[in-house]
Every structure is written in structure tokens, then in C-alpha cells.
């Protein structure tokens, strides 16, 4: 396999070390290496690498640049709140603090290019310099000229420099309207099941044999592969459930080779863990505690998300109910629900064309504050004094900040939640919802 990673100009030993660290990504690494050429050769000005998360983009680049000891600057676009930070980090890692401090306050792109050229005339590049931009999709929100300039930075600064952009989004979504230099596109495909198995088996527990851990991973993938292919999540699950897997071994009931028995032991636990996949709501410790509790109670597994019960003051509950009603009922129907002598209004003559679909499918609608309060006063049994404490309890505001005189609100809670709340105050909310008439 190392044959893919052969490139003149680099030490054989180093290449082998790289190959060892990049399982299942030899093709991509080889391609990158051949693109980079010999260290002193000019490389393609910009490379765009894309693929799903946890497909090894940053890892491959990082290992390559680090192990081959190439000059590089890695910048995460999340961190660069302003372009100044980006420029600073690049200059800092190429030319040291002195160069970075030359940047004026709130520098422009041309400042950056000027200083870069000035510095590289003093210390010209012996090897290709690499600028790695992680989460490059955020560059789209930056200044319009930043992305095109980065793509042809080599020309601008007249230096041996290559910009590598890493993103989870395809290049088509990046291309600016004005057109730009097209970078070289490189796709990192998702790992296959076999590859996942190979990678996951690498971080084995030191006190168990490699085969044992591999068989564990095999079982794990058998259960989870159908719902989850994210390497990071799988690794998390592997760490979470391994101690359970080893339990019969520690008790001395089973031998390491007896996979069938081990499988029978772990399978129900993995099935339960399925329910909380991707939720990441429990750390390993709490997971174990919960499993112990459950063995005592024999109840269904309750993730922490089951604890949605929220204690609220009495009027807050009614405010929430009123907000929910205001969000999901059309305003015209208020008369029917909250007036005593509303007369008979049938739903059918009432319907407008666009209201035929359920409001619950469309999501909450904004409503003004006075409608909320009107519903609130009619919903609460007793007479409530319009006190300041009620006015001060607020909900998610959706309208613009500048619309001060008539702010609009939306109720963001779910149907289940509001049903639970209204049950505690013995209010039959379904009777008041237009959708369920």
C-alpha cells in the first residue's frame, strides 16, 4: 500500500510514517502528494477538498504537512471573527511575530498582500508554503473579495504558496457571481463499513488483544451501521459500551475467543443505546449509572431528554398556553373559542383555502402582544389583576428590534409539552385548538 505514497523529494521513512497514520486514505493522500510535487516545486495555487464530516479531511492534511515538515499555517474560519485575525495568523506562522505586528489596525486585503510580499522578499520560500483553511464555507460570508483573492494568492504575492480549502459543502455553492479562479477539486468519499472497522479497531484497549477489540467493533458496527456512519459518533459509542462488553470477561465467565456468548451479552445493551444515538446527552459515567438503575427497575430506558418536565409558576403556565393558542389558531377563530355566545360556526364554512392544512404542520405563527393577553385573561379561571409581574414574563420575540410599538411573538414549545403543562392546571387544550375541532 505504501507504493501509493511515493514521491521524490521526501524521505522514505517519513512517507511510511504518514502511510501508517492514514489508514484507508492512501489514495487521497497519494493524490495530494503528487499534486504537491517536490518540496521546492511550485504547486497548484489552490486546492479545494470536500467531504462529509469525519471523513478525514483535516486529519490527512495535518498529518501530511506535519510529518513531512512543510511550512504551513492552519486557520479555522470559525475563529476568524474578522479578516484581521486570519491575516495575523498566516503572517505569524510564516514570518514570526514581527511581521504580524506590522499589520495596521483593521487591515485590508491589500495591506496583507503588501506585507506578505515585503516579508517574502526578505525570506523567500525554499519550500512550498501551505495555507490550510478549515470550515471554508464561512469564507462565503466574509468580504466578497477575500475568497477570489485567496484562490489566486500565489499570483498576488508572487511566492511559492498554496491555499488549501477544507469544506463539507461542494464547490458549486462557493462560486461567486463575478467568477473566479477555479481551484482543484478533491473529494473525500465516506468510509465504507470495512474501512470503518479497520479505523475503529486501531484504538484498542491496551489490556485486551487486538482481535478481541476488533470483534467488539465488528459487533458494534453490525448494530449501529444501519443508523449511524459518522466515525466520531461510532467512536464515542465504542468507548461508551466497551466496559459493558468486557464485563463477562472480568467476571471470568467467558473467554476472549467466545464471541457468540459475548454477543449475546452485549446485544440488548447496544439495542438500548440505539435510542440515544446522536443525542450525546450522557457522559459515560452517567450512562453506566443509568444502566445500573435500570437493572433494578426493569423499566424502559429513559434518556435525559425524557426529563422535559419543567416546573412553572401558575400564571406562567397559562401565559404559555395562551401563547400556544395564539400561535396555532387563526385570529378569526378567537371569537368562536373565547366568547360565550359565539353562535354556531361550522368549520367548513369557516375555512379559507390556505387554512386547510393543519396549522401544526405549518409551525407557529407570529401574534401581537395584546392578542396574547386577551386570550390569557379569558383562559384563566379567576380574575387576574393586570400586574407588572405578568407583563414582565416574555416569550421568544420574532419581529425586528426596531418595531417597538407592536412587537410580535411566537410560541416555540411543542405540542407534547403544552399538553403536559395544561394537564397540570387541568385545562383541556385540545378543545381550544382549531386543528382538532
Amino acid at each position, binding site marked *: 500500500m505504501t507504493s501509493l505514497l511515493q514521491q521524490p523529494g521526501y524521505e522514505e521513512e517519513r512517507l511510511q510514517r504518514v502511510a501508517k497514520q492514514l489508514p484507508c486514505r492512501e489514495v487521497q493522500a497519494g493524490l495530494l502528494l503528487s499534486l504537491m510535487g517536490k518540496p521546492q516545486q511550485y504547486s497548484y495555487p489552490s486546492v479545494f477538498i470536500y467531504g462529509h464530516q469525519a471523513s478525514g479531511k483535516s486529519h490527512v492534511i495535518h498529518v501530511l504537512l506535519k510529518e513531512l515538515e512543510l511550512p504551513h499555517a492552519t486557520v479555522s474560519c470559525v475563529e476568524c471573527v*474578522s479578516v484581521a485575525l486570519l491575516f495575523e495568523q498566516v503572517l505569524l506562522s510564516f514570518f514570526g511575530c514581527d511581521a504580524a505586528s506590522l499589520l495596521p489596525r483593521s487591515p485590508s486585503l491589500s495591506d496583507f498582500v503588501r506585507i506578505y510580499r515585503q516579508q517574502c522578499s526578505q525570506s523567500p520560500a525554499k519550500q512550498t508554503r501551505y495555507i490550510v483553511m478549515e470550515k471554508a464555507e464561512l469564507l462565503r460570508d466574509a468580504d466578497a473579495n477575500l475568497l477570489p483573492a485567496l484562490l489566486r494568492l500565489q499570483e498576488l504575492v508572487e511566492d511559492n504558496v498554496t491555499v488549501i480549502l477544507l469544506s463539507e459543502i461542494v464547490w458549486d455553492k462557493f462560486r461567486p457571481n463575478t467568477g473566479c479562479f477555479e481551484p482543484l477539486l478533491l473529494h473525500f468519499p465516506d468510509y465504507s463499513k470495512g474501512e470503518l472497522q479497520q479505523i475503529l479497531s486501531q484504538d484498542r484497549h491496551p489490556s485486551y488483544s487486538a482481535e478481541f477489540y476488533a470483534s467488539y467493533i465488528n459487533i458494534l458496527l453490525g448494530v449501529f451501521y444501519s443508523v449511524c456512519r459518522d466515525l466520531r459518533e461510532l467512536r464515542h459509542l465504542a*468507548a461508551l459500551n466497551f466496559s459493558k462488553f468486557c464485563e463477562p470477561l472480568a467476571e471470568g465467565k467467558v473467554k476472549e475467543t467466545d464471541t457468540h456468548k459475548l454477543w449475546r451479552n452485549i446485544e440488548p445493551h447496544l439495542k438500548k443505546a440505539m435510542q440515544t444515538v446522536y443525542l450525546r*446527552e450522557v*457522559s*459515560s459515567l452517567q450512562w453506566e449509572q443509568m444502566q445500573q438503575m435500570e437493572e433494578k427497575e426493569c423499566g424502559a430506558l429513559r434518556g435525559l431528554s425524557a*426529563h422535559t418536565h419543567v*416546573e412553572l409558576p401558575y400564571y406562567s403556565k397559562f401565559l404559555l398556553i395562551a401563547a400556544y393558542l395564539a400561535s396555532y389558531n387563526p385570529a378569526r377563530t378567537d371569537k368562536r373559542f373565547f366568547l360565550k355566545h359565539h353562535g354556531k360556526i361550522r368549520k367548513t364554512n369557516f375555512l379559507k383555502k390556505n387554512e386547510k392544512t393543519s396549522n401544526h404542520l405549518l409551525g407557529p405563527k407570529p401574534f401581537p402582544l395584546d392578542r396574547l393577553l386577551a386570550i390569557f385573561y379569558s383562559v384563566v379561571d379567576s380574575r387576574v389583576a393586570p*400586574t407588572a409581574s405578568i407583563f414582565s414574563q416574555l416569550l421568544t420575540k420574532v419581529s425586528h428590534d426596531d418595531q417597538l410599538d407592536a412587537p410580535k411573538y411566537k410560541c416555540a414549545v411543542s405540542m407534547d409539552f403544552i399538553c403536559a403543562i395544561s394537564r397540570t392546571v387541568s385545562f383541556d387544550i385540545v378543545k381550544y385548538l382549531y386543528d382538532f375541532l
Partner: protein
Amino acid sequence: MTVKTPQQETDLDLQGGLNRESKDAFTVANAEMSTSSVSKGCFVFKPSCKKKKTVSLEDHFSHGCEGAENSETRFKLCQDLWDKIKTDTEVLQDELNRKILDSLLDFTRKCSSTRLHSDWASQMRASEIPTAALVLGVNVPDHDMTFQSLSDLLQQSVTPHVASVQAKECGALKHLMKKVLERLMDTVVTVDDEEEDEAEQTSAQLHKSVHCSLSTLCDWYNTKTKKSNSGTPGKKRCSPGRDEPQQPPVVIIFKDLEAFNPRVLQDFILICSRYIERLPLMFIFGIATSPSTIQHMLPHSVSSLLCIELFQSLSCTQHLATVIDKLILTPQFPFKLNGKVMQVLMSIFLYHDFSVRNFIKGVQLALLEHFHSQPLSVLCCRKKEAVLNVMQLSHRNLERIRHLPSFKRYVEKQEPQEQVNLLTDDTRLKVVCQKLIKGLRKYHKNYYPVLRCLHTLTSSLPRYPLGKQVRELHLICLEKHVWENEDYQTAMKLLKMLAKDELIALLQRCVEILQPVKSKKMKAALVLLKDLLTRFKQLDTVAAETPPCAEDCITSPVKDLQKKTDLFQLQKTLLEMNESRRAKKLSPFEVLRNEALEFIDSLVKSHLSPPESQTLNEVCYYTSSATVRRHLNATPRTSIQAALSSPYYYLQNESLKTEDGSVSNAAPDICIAYKLHLECGRLINLYDWLEAYATVVSAAEGNNPDSFGKVDEVKHARFIQAVSELEFLGFIKSTKQKTDHVARLTWGGC
């Protein structure tokens, strides 16, 4: 002209590099920097002059205070009492929070130690940021205290690097980053004076470089830890540094997670996870609603970077129950609230905010009001002081005592000669007062234990006739004679049906309650109760000796029953059976049970009478529930409407006084305009309104028949002002439906 927001202003200040003094001034401004304004703009914050305030505190108290002659003593008493209540509640709160805080501290310690000992499991999650999700409940006003003690504890025992941030100060990622860096680096400045120069330098560096990023923090952290490691331990200030881990974690507390902009939070976590290998970061999320908010706010790609552990704090209702238990239901504090005031405070808590802190604030308000408005509150203190204070009462205050309703009732019950003595002889009155004060004290000493006993007996009954919580029972008892209450009767009936072991357990708990009480009567009651208990326990042995003979008298009619098939006969026998059962001799257990319950009943009747029946209760009980309600649960709209419809209520001007809710024409313009607008429908014609207004106003000005009802410029201007004031108050708004019309925003009218 450019208008700066306060935030920008501080930015500039920081960048400008300040000298030490002006920096202090800045921090003062920063602490005060919250305005109630909804608009963005430039605010001037003057440094508050605290010295003046403390001087005038007592003057404030005696100003406008009833019976000014002893206001000094009362002020002192009030202060002492409040200080005591405050420290007590603080201790209580610390205790309540101790469990959760301890587990949090353990969590942080564990996190920092696992970084050092790398076993397999912790290696697997080395890239995750340890996060504690702290669920605190919806009573947000109480949270500040918890977070304060949490960060104090963390700084004392785990790590000096703690920063807490609030959502409102971190609108953008930049601000969040800046706040975190500032707090982390500045806390060191304030904590360690020794390293001030060094820290000053770093902060200067920070401010010199315009952008603050986490790599700056990393460098700072490295120099910090390196220095403390290499530094000689003898010179080090912090002695607990020995067992501290070599790399204390950097803890960031997000006080109100829900309020944070999810975008900002996500980005911040993403950035932090890039530095987790170099910087031992740790998060604490303060959550008010439920842990699932984390999932709502953070997508999987972000939440997978965290290793979340959940911590649930005590529910606020439990919290309040403990506070009431320790603060209200104790004879320790002489100051008491009457039923209505309690009701107001409780309803604010249950219906509005769930905030224990606000409840205590309410108690504080009642306390202040009581000492301020009741001259006789000099007697509301410890027994010894009260007895002394009685001797020093002035003649005026003694007259006040004579006018107290409870004292009048007391006098009426006395002999005629004694009545005369009490009403005329001051020294006699003082002696009696001392006796009465002592009596009141004894009443309280007996009241609370008996209340608790009754509560233990009734709190487990089906459907809770006397309430689940002891405070509910307390409220019932405060209002009227509890034994006249229907619920009390049902509770007693239910108690008469209790099984033996249940009853014994309950009585046992009553004994435990009465045990520590030192009053004579309670001691006697305790002896009796213990005696009852032993008799209950002896029943077993006695019952074993005498075989029950009741069985056959029950079985015989049952046998008869099987023979009879006639409906009438059946009914007859059933009735007979019922009769016989009722008349049946009670078993020894039943006799004893009745005896025990009668004993409890007598205890209740002698000790749980409402405080209003006690003589001199006005000294200790604060009764003005309306004041408390007005202060704590204000009704802004009602006040505005009251002011507009009857200006006399606020202005106290005799010419404004009217009888039947109408507004006099001498009232302020806005009141007249308001009154006129009430007569209109949803849309108001401005011209008609103006005409009507001009008529009313000219009637007030005098009767020049020529200009009557004519609109001159002054009137026009006054009218426009009144209308725009009404618009500002939200009664009308301009509308495009009809020209020259405004729309009413309220409904109803005269």
C-alpha cells in the same frame, strides 16, 4: 454625529490603554451598566455616591415615620432582625446548595485529574470538553446567588481560572471571547496583588493587539502554569496549591444558556475544541428549563465535542418550604406575618415567579414597613429587651396600647376595678403589658410545635384535607379557629380510621417534634403522648391474653342472613347488624385511639388559636397585605387608569374632587381628553374630539359667552399635547383606515 453604544465606548476605552485609576472607574461603570431603556443609545453612568446613602438610611427611616420619638430604637431593632434573617437564610441556602455544589466541584476535580492519568477511556474522550449541565429551575432571580457561591468555591478549592458570562453581554462571538479573556486574566489581577505587574503587562498586551483569540489565552495560561510550577513553594501565596493539580482547569460558566445566541455558542465551542489539547477547558451550563435545550441549541456536530454530565438542583418549592420552615415557622424571630400577608407573598411565589429571593425580599419589606409604621413595634424583640422596652414606653405609646383592639377586648374581660386601673394607671399598665408580652411569647413557643404535630398527623391522609405542606396548615390556623374548619373535622374522622401501626408511627414522629421544645406545657404534653404510645405498644401483649369474644356476635347474624331470602327481612337484618355494630363494644385499641385523638384535639384547641385572639398581637404581626401587594405586585395599567379617571387620587387637590366618577373640568388636559375618548367608539374623529375638549376647557376658564367653545391656538396646542401623551401611554394610535381619525387601543368606556 455618531452615537456610540455603551459597548463600543468601553471598547474604545480598552483599546486606548488606560492608567490604573481610570480603569477602576471603568469597572464601576461596568457594574452599573444596565439600563432599563429599550432603545439603543448613549448612556451616562455617574458613579453612585454610596457614602451619602448609608448616612441617610436612618434618616430615611425616621422620616415620616409614625411615632418618631422611639424611631431610633425601632430602626436598630429592625436592622438587627433583618441582619439575622439575612445571615440565616444565606446559611440555609448554602446548605441547600451544598450537595449539588459539592458534586460539581468533584466533577471539575475529576476532569482535571483524568487529563493527567491517561487510561484508555479518558484517552478516547480527550478531545471532548467536559461540560456540566446544571439544571436550576425557572426561578432565574435566585440563580445569581448559586453561581456566585459556585465560582467562589471553585476559586477557593479547584482552580483560580473561573470566568462566568451572561447572555446579555455576549451578543456576538467577539464579545463573548473578549469577556472570557478579560475575566480570566483580570481575575488574576484582583486576586493576586503580587503578580499585578506581570498581569498588567499581559493585559496591556491583550489590549494592544486589537484581536483577542484563544491562542492568546493559551500563551497566557502556559506562562502562568509554568511560572507557578517553577516558583518556590515557600513564596507562593496560595497554600492549597500543593495538592492542586499541576494544570488547574479553566472553567467557563454560562449563566443563562437559553438566552445565548445559539450561533455564538456553537462557534465558541468549535473554537474551544480546537484548543482543548493545549488548554484544559471546562464548561458549566446554567439551564433554567430542561436539559433538552442543549440539543435544541447545539447541532450534533457541536454537541459531539462536549462530554456532558447532568446536575439537577433542588426544586424551588422544596427550597421555599425549607426557608419558611426555618424563617417563618419558628418562635426564634419575634416578627410575624399575618395570614393575609403570607397569602400575598405565597401567591406571588406560586403564581408569578417561583423565586425564593423575591419571597425573602417580601419579608424584608414587611419587616421594614412594620417597624416604620407601628410605633409599638419597639416591643417586637427578644423577651428581655421587650420587657425593658415596656418600662420605657412613653405615655403616648401607652395610650396607643389602650387603643389596640386586642387590648380593648382584654380589658373588657377584666373586673371593673381592674379595668379602671388599666385605663388610667400607667405603671399598672406597664406591669400588665410585661405579663402579656410574656404570654404572647409562650403562645408562639407552643403554637409551632403543635402546628407541626398536627401537620405530621394530617399530611399523609388521603386527599390532604389540611394541605400537603405545613405552610398551608399554617395559613388555615392564622385565619380562624382551625377546629371549626370543616376540613379539620374530616381530617379527624379519617384519623379515627387509621390502622394501629400507622398511628403509632405518626405519634412517634410527634414525640420527636415535641422532644426538643422547652416550654412547660409542651413538656407535659410530651409526657402524656409518651404514655399513650407505651399503652399502644402494650396492647399487643394484652390482646394476646384476652381472646376476642366479639367474633361470634358478628358471625351469628351472618348465618341468619344466609337463611333469609325475603327482601324486607334482609333489609331488616342488615339494619339490625348495623345497629349492633355501632353499639358494639369498642376494642381496646379503638378506645385508646379515640383517647389519643381527643388528646391531640385538646392540644390543638388550646394552642392553635389564631394570633388575632391574642392580646397585643399587633406588636408582632404585620397585617397590611395591601401595602405589600402594592409594592411587590404593582399594577401599572390600573394606576394609570386610576390617575386619568380620578386625578384627585394622586394630586390631592380639593378642586379636583368629584363624586360620581366624573372628571371635573379643572382637571389636567390629559384627564379631560381621556374622559372624552372613553365616550367614543373604535375610531375617534380628531376634530370632534377637539371641539368637545374646547367646550369643557372653556367651561372651566370662565363664562365669556363670545369665546365659549371656540378653539384658540393655546387650546389647540394643549389638546395636541394631551393626545400625544395618550398615544405615548398606549391608549390610541394613528390609523390609516380613515383620515383625521385615531384608533382606540382599549375597549370599554363609560
